[in-house]
């Protein structure tokens, strides 16, 4: 196919943002037009990516729809393409973005035009991350994503937004610098930053360890892994709802994607070497943050900490290097993308009405908002991994995978499913059940139609993939096989070499 469909998907949001930028005239019209443009471009993009999924050939392990443009001769090519892994992340991104836009339109009260631009630019950057097949391009998109997020927190955030924004920035910057150094080193070693070529190049094993650590620092911060997770609760608490949704649903997934694509693909020796280290951090993350989540008084913080625990499952799944583990961790990321987005939207719903995120402000909401209580229940169950929701498929596959690699890690991680039930159900009970004690909230209205449609679509997908995850697993199948095979031949090559 000659039509540059990937470029189109990446740049449609940016074009939408440009249109919004140049709208002028009567402020009311500007607002209305920019909303329409944002909704239209993000929805069109979603449809286009569905089409991409439809025409994508699931039986080929190579990258598809590859496009290449020379940028700096002999150094950087603008090269993009997708395989079965990245296409799912693209779908997640294009699905979540319209939801964020709808949510933003509902709750953002000032500078709505600028807000929409930030979201659309953000979408372009995130899509770029999942498509890029050149390390420098990847780096630009990956770090570029920081800027709109920084602005979203810093401008539309809560009272402590400046502290949070800077904390977010400091942490992620630390990782970025190291990754940049690693990328430059790779270019210096191999003479290319082309990912397709690099996947076939065997980087000398003695360099792999430091390079791996360079990438790891960056990904670990974004993931976030313990102990560099503390920026996440603060960022979530201060971010507006739409910002939290993007942050939890997509931004965190860029790191998981990075681990799979680069850490495993480029540095198998180091990945193998550092696996126990990753397992340890992930287990600490699962147990530690679950316990911390239990004691939170702020709904958003609780969900943020639970995200860290869920991401712990993702990292152990990835580094189990077993098919079930890898597929499980990708399903877990998709599922977490839907569930955490839904949970943050749920907090957003009551925050818009009463302007408090404190659990103690609420209680007995089921009496006045039964529809809300119902959808919240589904998301709570998905978050604690009840079978029949997408959360279960991901977690269970991860554990099945890890169990084959390391029984102790799997057993300890399984403890997380007990804690998850505890903190999620306790949260639900304190917010939703009981008598309506706070008289100020008794006039809160139940979900309006837009909210209802958003939640209904999320509920549908969470249940659908819980009962029938086959469409996702099908897409992943060949690419994951290929990944594991490459990893093993690459690893064996190095082992054979060092033995000689």
């Amino acid at each position, binding site marked *: 196919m000659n039509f540059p469909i990937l470029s189109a998907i990446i740049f449609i949001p940016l074009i939408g943002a440009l249109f919004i930028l140049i709208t002028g005239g009567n402020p009311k019209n500007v607002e209305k037009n920019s909303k329409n443009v944002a909704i239209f471009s993000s929805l069109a993009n979603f449809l286009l990516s569905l089409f991409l999924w439809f025409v994508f050939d699931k039986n080929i392990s190579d990258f598809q729809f590859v496009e290449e443009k020379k940028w700096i001769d002999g150094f950087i090519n603008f090269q993009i393409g997708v395989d079965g892994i990245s296409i799912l992340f693209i779908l997640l991104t294009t699905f979540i973005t319209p939801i964020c836009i709808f949510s933003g339109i509902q709750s953002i009260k000032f500078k709505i035009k600028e807000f929409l631009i930030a979201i659309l630019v953000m979408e372009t950057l995130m899509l770029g991350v999942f498509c890029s097949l050149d390390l420098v391009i990847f780096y630009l998109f990956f770090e570029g994503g920081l800027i709109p997020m920084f602005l979203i927190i810093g401008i539309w955030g809560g009272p402590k937004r400046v502290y949070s924004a800077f904390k977010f920035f400091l942490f992620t910057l630390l990782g970025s610098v190291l990754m940049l150094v690693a990328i430059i080193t790779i270019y210096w070693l191999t003479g290319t930053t082309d990912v397709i070529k690099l996947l076939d190049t065997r980087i000398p094993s003695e360099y792999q360890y430091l390079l791996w650590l360079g990438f790891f620092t960056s990904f670990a911060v974004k993931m976030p892994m313990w102990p560099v997770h*503390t920026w996440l609760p603060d960022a979530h608490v201060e971010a507006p709802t739409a910002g939290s949704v993007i942050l939890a649903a997509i931004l965190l997934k860029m790191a998981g994607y990075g681990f799979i694509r680069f850490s495993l693909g480029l540095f198998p020796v180091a990945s193998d070497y550092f696996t126990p280290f990753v397992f340890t951090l992930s287990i600490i993350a699962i147990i530690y943050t679950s316990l911390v989540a239990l004691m939170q008084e702020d709904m958003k913080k609780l969900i943020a900490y639970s995200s860290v625990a869920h991401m712990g499952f993702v990292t152990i799944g990835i580094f189990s290097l077993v098919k079930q583990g890898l597929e499980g961790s990708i399903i877990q990321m998709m599922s977490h993308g839907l569930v955490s987005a839904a949970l943050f939207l749920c907090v957003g719903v009551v925050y818009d009405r009463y302007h408090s995120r404190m659990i103690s402000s609420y209680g007995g909401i089921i009496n006045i908002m039964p529809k809300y209580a119902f959808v919240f229940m589904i998301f709570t169950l998905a978050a604690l991994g009840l079978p029949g929701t997408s959360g279960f498929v991901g977690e269970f*596959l991860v554990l*099945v995978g890890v169990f*084959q690699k390391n029984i102790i890690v799997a057993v300890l991680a*399984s403890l997380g499913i007990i804690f998850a*039930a505890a903190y999620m159900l306790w949260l639900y009970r304190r917010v939703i059940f009981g008598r309506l004690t706070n008289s100020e909230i008794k006039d809160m209205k139940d979900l309006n139609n837009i909210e209802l449609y958003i939640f209904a679509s999320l509920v549908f997908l969470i249940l659908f993939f819980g009962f029938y995850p*086959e469409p996702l697993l099908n897409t992943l199948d060949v690419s994951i096989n290929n990944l594991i095979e490459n990893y093993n031949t690459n690893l064996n090559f190095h082992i054979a070499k060092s033995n000689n």
Partner: protein
Amino acid sequence: MEYAIVFLPLLGSIISGFFGKRIGIYLSQILSSSLVLISGFFSLFIFYQVFNEGYYSNKLIFNWISSGNFNVNWSIYIDPLTSVMLVVVSIISSIIHFYSIGYMSHDPHKTRFMAYLSLFTFAMLTLVTADNFLQLFFGWEGVGLCSYLLIGFWYKKPSANAAAIKAFIVNRVGDFGFAIGIFLIFLFYGTVNYNEVFQQTPSIVQKEIIFLGIQFNLLTLICFMLFIGAMGKSAQILLHTWLPDAMEGPTPVSALIHAATMVTAGVFLLVRCSPLFEYSETALNIVATIGMITAFFAASVALVQNDIKKIIAYSTCSQLGYMFFAVGIGAYHVAIFHLFTHAFFKALLFLGSGCVIHAFKDEQDIRLMGGVWKKLPYSYALMIIGTLALTGFPLLSGYYSKDAIIEFAYLKGNTIGYYACAVGIITALLTAFYSWRLIFKTFHGKYNNKKENISSIHESPYMMLIPSAFLAAGAIFVGISFKEMFIGENNTDFWNNSILFLNSFHHTYPPTWLVMTTPIIVTLSIPISYYLFLINEKILKDIVAKNQSLYNFLLNKWYFDEFYNLIFVRTIKKIGLFLWKKGDINTIDRFGPDGMSRLVKNISNKVVNFQSGYLYHYAFVMLIGFSILLTYFILY
């Protein structure tokens, strides 16, 4: 037809849950109850076919998860064991659906209640019709969810909410073990489908593995992990604490979920896995031991409780203990037979107590009842039938199943078998005492309620009595009618290959004295309890006064709740708080980002001091720098 059995309840749940208000509350209640009833009729038909023609089927619905060699399907699997469970679940569920129409008549959330009940039925049916461990796990957690929702049905009561969460989390602890069992099975068998797993089992009997640093026999470990799951769901000792609290839910829920069906899922699991357990003597002994302790423990606690539903809940716990030690001695078919009869009489007892509670306007304390047997003749009759059946009065259902367990324990002929036999007899005695205590305190003696006048006590509506009457019929007749089929000489004709028996029994026939013991004890206990609880209460009061600490020990349920609260709940909360305040805020943030920015600030503050503006400061620094440079060049 299999599809209809499983999916009609789901349909009913969706209709009354989402469209209940629109199509009318009454219609949706009738509709969902009828759908479950149809499912019940179909189950009976399947049961008949299995019994008559040896019907067997395994229908694939669709593929659930396939990742590499991990393949799991949604399916409907019918074999003799499943067909028995289908009958128990769908028949009792439909009776309780109809009963609920009467019981919940004053509740504002009738459609929601019906939706949950039907959803529960659906989940339970998927559990029993699974052909692999993962679908079983789906149903397992699904019934747990419905149990959670129904215990917390009256969401305005804080105690109900707490009980609901407790039930879910304690079950999760069990499920944690269950899940590890499934992982182990997949790791060593490469599949989680029953048939493939069971076929391969004989070849791995000797396999040993290192698990968490300790060497285990693989099969024993798998069985033990599965058993932990069963302990959680079936409220065996250590993981039993949620069941009494679960009585916070509406009474029909207690009857259906916490007596007849869900709590017996653990027994079902063990019987289903008989091809695994039969190869592991150790695992069977563990099961038997836990079962015995539970049977005795729960009966002892039931002796002194005052809440009518809690007494029956502990009684359930105790009867589940019987089923477990029946499994432990290898008498799987007897365990299932007891499960089958127990479902009828225990559900009956709950529905009967529901009638009583309804009559007393939601009073549950038996000390505040009494003397109303003439006012509530039908409820009284129901409760008497249930009690007779439970205690194992000759010719009623419980007699056949419970005595069979005691006899088979004896027949086993080894140490654990004799212990089980003794515990079975002692517990039967305790069972008789607490059951009759309940009856006499509730219906006889003085009327003790101050809130309600005795004249305001009325019999429950027919909508509640008629369904209960069906259960009463079951409690009387199912024992005698199905005895031959389930545990008779030719029981293998019926069970076919669904249960594996490897370990033979030592004796062939129980001695006559044993056969006579239990019925005599049970019969004698009626006049004795009548005397102790009604005629001469002083004797018991003296005993209590002399053994105050023992009495408190029993009254407080062996202090399990207090112990767990101290060890787990509070400790975990403290650790959580510590990690958050000291770990995240005081360590990571303090030395991480906050520390970094403080450092930068401090350094820049100090650097500012350098720029003092005095020429001699600058000159001095230059001089030092110059001399250092000079020294360097001279030396090197």
